[in-house]
């Protein structure tokens, strides 16, 4: 169990693609950290540099404080679960788990004891002599966990290991992975493009984009205080309103959207903590600056609107009264998504707004084509740089 440090790490692939661009990152001891981002953002390359399969062009990789930048993968003592799982098809389950122990020169009996112990831990006792292709997807996954952890590595690395599984088994295995990781207490770096997976598993998430880290923080911080428009849009659903700052009082900011509505939002507590230069530094937010307001669908409140109000004061906005006037919308579609009711709304200018209610929560008795006003609590709306 050790800490992992990436120090100003850069990796350019032949052809000039900068996969990782000056990333600095510390994975704390015992922590479950997720590298989250779209494909091509550099998350897998970062992981592979920790494992030693890629050499950074610049910067250093430290494991437990020791510089391992030039250490080959077989001397790094990391346990990795690959995207394809990479179970050896020509070996039994037991031999797969034994492989790493044998490479470390552990005696046959001791290695076998340890391997069986690991298989018991992942609830696969009795499957020792099966071949990987005789197992189900979930069982293969657990063998991969057992194999990587059997050697007691100092770091646990996972590269999108759940990508090939169906949703139900994926959920079960996520719980199991988290339990396993906490029981062993091992420092873990997990790579995924699935934000839900990242949210449910991680102690901290590093959101990556174009080879850089956009924001790093706990799932809650990332969700509630996204540092950039990209993070807000990538992690969970959000409604974005582009506009200009009209007025600012402390953290509270009044913004006039491009459609001409005035809305209020707050600067997040985490605003500016991201490594990316795109994140809004609180001090720079001043009247006239272009910003984007992000509002989560669950923060959208719908109120009935008199159809006639449309012609009156500009779009029914009431800038005074401490709150905000709200945005007039038309209900386009209502969907029932599991325990949520999802409203698809359109502003007069044609921007789509999505609002969700918990089923059973008080909702409007409003059908498709109905007129409504969207409001939200400024505390739940975030001001971000464009």
């Amino acid at each position, binding site marked *: 169990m050790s800490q992992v440090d990436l120090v100003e790490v850069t990796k350019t692939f032949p052809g000039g693609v900068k996969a990782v661009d000056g990333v600095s990152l510390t994975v704390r001891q015992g922590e479950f950290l997720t590298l989250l981002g779209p494909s091509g953002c550099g998350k897998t390359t970062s992981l592979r540099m920790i494992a030693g399969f890629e050499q950074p062009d610049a910067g250093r990789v430290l494991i437990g404080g020791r510089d391992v930048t030039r250490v080959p993968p077989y*001397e790094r003592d990391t*346990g*990795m679960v690959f995207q394809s799982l*990479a179970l050896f*098809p020509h070996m039994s389950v037991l031999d797969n788990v034994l*492989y*790493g122990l044998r*490479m470390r020169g552990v005696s046959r009996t001791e290695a076998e004891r340890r391997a069986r112990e690991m298989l018991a831990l992942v609830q696969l006792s009795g499957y020792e002599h099966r071949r990987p292709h005789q197992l189900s997807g979930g069982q293969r996954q657990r063998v991969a966990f057992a194999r990587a952890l059997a050697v007691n590595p100092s770091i646990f690395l996972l590269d999108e290991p759940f990508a090939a599984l169906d949703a139900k088994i994926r959920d079960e295995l996520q719980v199991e992975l988290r339990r396993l990781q906490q029981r062993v207490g091992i420092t873990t770096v997990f790579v995924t493009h699935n934000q839900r997976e990242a949210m449910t598993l991680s102690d901290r998430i590093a959101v990556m984009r174009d080879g850089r880290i956009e924001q790093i923080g706990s799932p809650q911080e990332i969700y509630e205080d996204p540092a950039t428009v990209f993070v807000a849009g990538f992690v969970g659903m959000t409604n974005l309103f582009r506009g200009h700052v009209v007025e600012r009082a402390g953290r509270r900011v009044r913004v006039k959207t491009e459609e001409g509505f005035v809305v209020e939002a707050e600067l997040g507590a985490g605003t500016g903590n991201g490594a990316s230069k795109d994140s809004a530094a609180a001090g720079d937010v001043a009247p006239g600056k272009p910003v984007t307001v992000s509002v989560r669908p669950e923060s959208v409140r719908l109120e009935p609107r008199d159809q006639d109000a449309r012609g009156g004061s500009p779009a029914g906005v009431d800038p005074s009264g401490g709150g905000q006037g709200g945005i007039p919308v038309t209900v386009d579609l209502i969907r029932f998504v599991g325990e949520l009711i999802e409203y698809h709304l359109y502003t007069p200018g044609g921007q789509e707004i999505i609002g969700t209610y918990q089923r059973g929560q008080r909702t409007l008795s409003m059908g498709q084509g109905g007129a409504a006003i969207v409001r939200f609590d400024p505390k739940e709306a975030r001001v971000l740089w464009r």
Partner: protein
Amino acid sequence: MANAGPRPAPSRPGNGEDMGAGIGPVLERPSRRRWPDPSLALVGTTFWVVLAFIVVPLGVLAAVSVHPGRFMTFPPQGFSLRWYQTLLTSSQWLEAIRNSLVVALGSAVLATSIALVLALVLDRYPVRFGEYMRRLGMMPLFLPPVIMGVAFVAFFYEIGFSGRIENLIIAHGIFNAPFPLLLISSGLSKVNRELEESAMNLGARPATVLRTVTLPLIRADVFAGVLFAFLLSLNEYIVAFLVSGFTVVTLPIEIFSSLRYSFSPVIAAASVLFIAGTGFLVWLADRLAGGLWD
């Protein structure tokens, strides 16, 4: 389309009247959706005729080989294995069989060893020099064997080392190398790179990865490569004939030269043995390589 009605739909603007023409009848008479019977029957008949064309000559050889008389007659005059007995007691034929097996085995090992090393190194380190070597290794596939044979004749004459069985082994080893090269390269390309990385991640050094992961995974391809090279060498005539310079006689050479002087059914018996052996090896190689043609 559903409302096209019994009459052909009027031609639609833009996309051709061919399509409309068929719709009405098809809807009315679904049986017309199948092949019209006459054309399928024609294709089916052709199939069986061509299959007979392929199989019958070899069947006739088998018949000749067990026919007691020197010449095949109709109707046949009984059954006898005397030609097989003659074949397997003749020192001349046994010598040819022995030579063939030695050359086939030696050249198969040579061809596969060249292919294996080349394919393994290039799979990992695609250096330019190696890519040239790969192209060179594939070239015999595109060169007529006669020309290869004459080239070997010139070469072995020039270095003053001709008419020896080693020459045949080398010539066949080079000439048949493309097959194991293709098989092993494609086998390697199917090995998931993450398997090797995974082994390394678990602490295996490159040489250990090769021994414990890569080689076991391409074992079938290597064996299939050996088998194909063996098979090709066993059946190859013209390169062997040219390189041997009348001194080393392999089975195809013996059959060929027997043809010049006689028309003995012993040749048919030898051919049948040949067909059986080849069929078995093809079957084995196909099993190993996991269905090469389907």
